[in-house]
């Protein structure tokens, strides 16, 4: 069953393409049509690390957090296994279930919800994470017999100054990050996983992101956020080699065996007060970010990737202000705290005052939040002038397990066995 037939791909082509790809994958990356549009290609689902972290950031996001509503460990495991199967299928450009969108029993609801018919894999990645409440719920109950496997670093984030968190859109027992180059493909994936989960999990909150704000590969340019700036230039990237072991992936000696090769995920929904920002002078905007708005270069430098010179002064005044965002967030100011950010811009309509409900859905992966997000956010929340224009409205932390190795493996196997 395939969502999209490879037009013009003859029998010989199928055979040739089939040789290099797993049988479940209908949309070979080497096919003619896919070659014309690299954004349509499938990203390998199986691997040592989960896809969707180092994968060059796709254009669209649908992020969902779930609450587990069963107390039955076996039921939860069965769901994780069913999810893994469906996720592997969808990331390969296939339907969520074998009956497809319209090929099953006429008197049964279709296996797949159908809105991705005709769409290729579109670079879909599905990345799962486990929240602290999966291990011990709000009442301290160890529902699934895994409390003793809670990693030390998977703790609720500390409160930060100016937090305006809405508990209704924060936290979660499980999360799935769906990224794709086609928004419909990302939404389709979350919707089908949620459907498979009825009775076992309940979707607690979800967030759409319409445009990436980060680059996770040197092959990508840094996109602009809704404030019009390039931010997160000093991101960890796929090409960073040893830095990834040091800052991104949880190591074998980090205290949780099941998480080796995984990563900690922090999400923050950051609302931007774009209306007041837009009536701020260019001079002030650049001073707040510490970057030039057109090029993205650190103030005093000429190129985006030039190292910022925090010592430079002009007429006795620092070129990059003491409370500039670039300075406060920089690794050198935070004990070499590094993260891999892959956030997305969102607009959730307008509020009742006619203001755009817009901002950045911040996503960061790291080996240890204490050496990543926490020190940086502490510094930002207490000093950043940008706080006048932003507000953190949701927060969550998850431990994302290592990758699914093959068809016999499943999301969370190492945690539950």
């Amino acid at each position: 069953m395939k969502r999209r037939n490879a037009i013009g791909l003859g029998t010989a082509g199928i055979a040739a393409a089939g040789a290099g790809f797993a049988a479940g994958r209908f949309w070979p990356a080497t096919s003619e049509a896919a070659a014309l549009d690299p954004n349509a290609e499938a990203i390998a689902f199986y691997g040592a690390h989960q896809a969707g972290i180092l994968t060059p950031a796709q254009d669209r996001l649908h992020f969902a957090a779930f609450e587990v509503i069963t107390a039955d460990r076996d039921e939860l495991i069965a769901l994780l296994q069913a999810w893994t199967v469906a996720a592997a299928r969808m990331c390969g450009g296939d339907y969520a279930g074998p009956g497809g969108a319209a090929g099953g029993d006429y008197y049964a609801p279709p296996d797949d919800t159908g809105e991705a018919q005709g769409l290729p894999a579109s670079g879909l990645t599905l990345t799962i994470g486990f929240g602290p409440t999966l291990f011990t719920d709000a009442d301290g109950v160890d529902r699934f017999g895994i409390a003793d496997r809670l990693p030390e670093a998977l703790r609720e984030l500390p409160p930060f100054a100016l937090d305006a968190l809405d508990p209704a859109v924060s936290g979660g027992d499980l999360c799935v990050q769906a990224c794709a180059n086609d928004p419909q493909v990302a939404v389709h994936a979350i919707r089908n996983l949620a459907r498979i989960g009825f009775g076992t999990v309940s979707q607690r909150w979800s967030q759409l992101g319409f445009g990436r704000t980060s680059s996770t590969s040197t092959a990508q340019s840094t996109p602009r956020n809704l404030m019009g700036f390039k931010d997160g230039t000093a991101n960890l990237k796929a090409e960073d080699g040893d830095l990834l072991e040091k800052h991104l992936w949880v190591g074998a000696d980090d205290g949780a065996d099941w998480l080796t090769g995984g990563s900690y995920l922090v999400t923050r929904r950051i609302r931007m007060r774009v209306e007041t920002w837009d009536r701020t002078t260019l001079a002030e905007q650049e001073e707040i970010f510490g970057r030039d708005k057109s090029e993205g270069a650190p103030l005093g430098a000429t190129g985006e990737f030039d190292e910022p010179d925090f010592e430079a002064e002009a007429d006795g005044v620092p070129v990059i202000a003491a409370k500039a965002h670039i300075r406060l967030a920089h690794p050198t100011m935070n004990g070499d705290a590094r993260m891999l950010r892959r956030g997305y811009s969102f607009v959730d309509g307008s509020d009742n005052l006619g203001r755009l409900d817009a901002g950045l859905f911040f996503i960061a992966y790291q080996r240890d939040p204490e050496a990543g997000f926490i020190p940086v956010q502490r510094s930002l929340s207490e000093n950043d002038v940008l706080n006048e224009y932003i507000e953190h409205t949701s927060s969550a932390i998850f431990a994302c397990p290592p990758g699914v190795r093959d068809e016999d493996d499943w999301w969370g196997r190492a945690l539950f066995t």
Partner: protein
Amino acid sequence: MRHLAPAAAAAAALALLAACSEKPAESDDGAIGVLATDDACEVAVSEAEAGTVTFTIKNEGTKVNEFYVYAEGNRVMGEVENITPGLTRELIVELPADAYETACKPGMIGDGIRADFTVTGEAASLSEDQALQDAVDSYKRYVESQSAGLVEQTELFAEAVRAGDIEGAKALFPVARTYWERIEPVAEIFGDLDPRIDAREDDYPEGPTDPAFTGFHKLEYDLWITGDLSESGPIADQLVADVNEIVALAAAEELSPLQLANGAKALLDEIASFKITGEEDRYSHTDLWDFAANLEGSEGAIASMRPVLDERDPDLVAALDEEFANAWAALEQHREGDGWRLHDELTPEELQELSDAINALGEQVSKVAAVVAE
């Protein structure tokens, strides 16, 4: 048709009234006495021979009672509703050899006071077609029993409205609707009548004051919002007439197994879309009565098909049993006295929990149609 026509049943009940003693007994003609009170349900015997079995139920309690015979999975083999205090009613039911349960439901709510009832003798084995026909017949019995309750309770409700008895009418409103909501998918077959009985104000351009707005919800509006029943009499009369008409149509309608399956799902969709949101009974907030009735109606339709489902997909039956139990457990937390908490008293978290349970159940029930259509 195995069902006894209401007039005949009433006549039989009257004839038996004299014969019924204080203690339940098996009478000379083989009728099994049932003595129902507010906290007991004494059935004279717990066994019978396969074939036609007759129960005579006397209500010596203070609450309106109901009597049911259930096969496995709460499949209603037969029931009598609306046995008011002091009244004796008869239930005649065809029972093949099997294990059953009897139940009285004082106050017409809950699982009832149950007892085992065993029928021995020749086991009826049904062909596939017969099994499906049996499912339809079983559901038609259910619809007819609910129809009788609907007519009676709607008349009582209308009487209270006509009499200007606001408090009395308010108390009867969710009770009459219970019978309606249990069989609503059948009513919806009759396109014109359903809106006249059950439309909501949003169905009309002028909202609640639109002259075309009639039925239960118009009276709900008069009772809870304006408190003015001076113009409500004709609406009540029309409601009674419409309900009688729809009941007659329903009795004459031939149903298919697929309609049963889709009806079971449609009732859960009703809950998910209108009851959990509080849209259905927006003036009275008695949505949980309707919720329970939809759930009972869905369970009733599924129970009718149980022998077919047992044969064709036992795993699905197990999943249905589990999810129906979960949904009831979620709802039961909100029982209050003989009824339910008001919708606007529930927290968002409580509503979320109900929604989760209905979603889980709905996914399973949505699989039934393909199984009966095999």
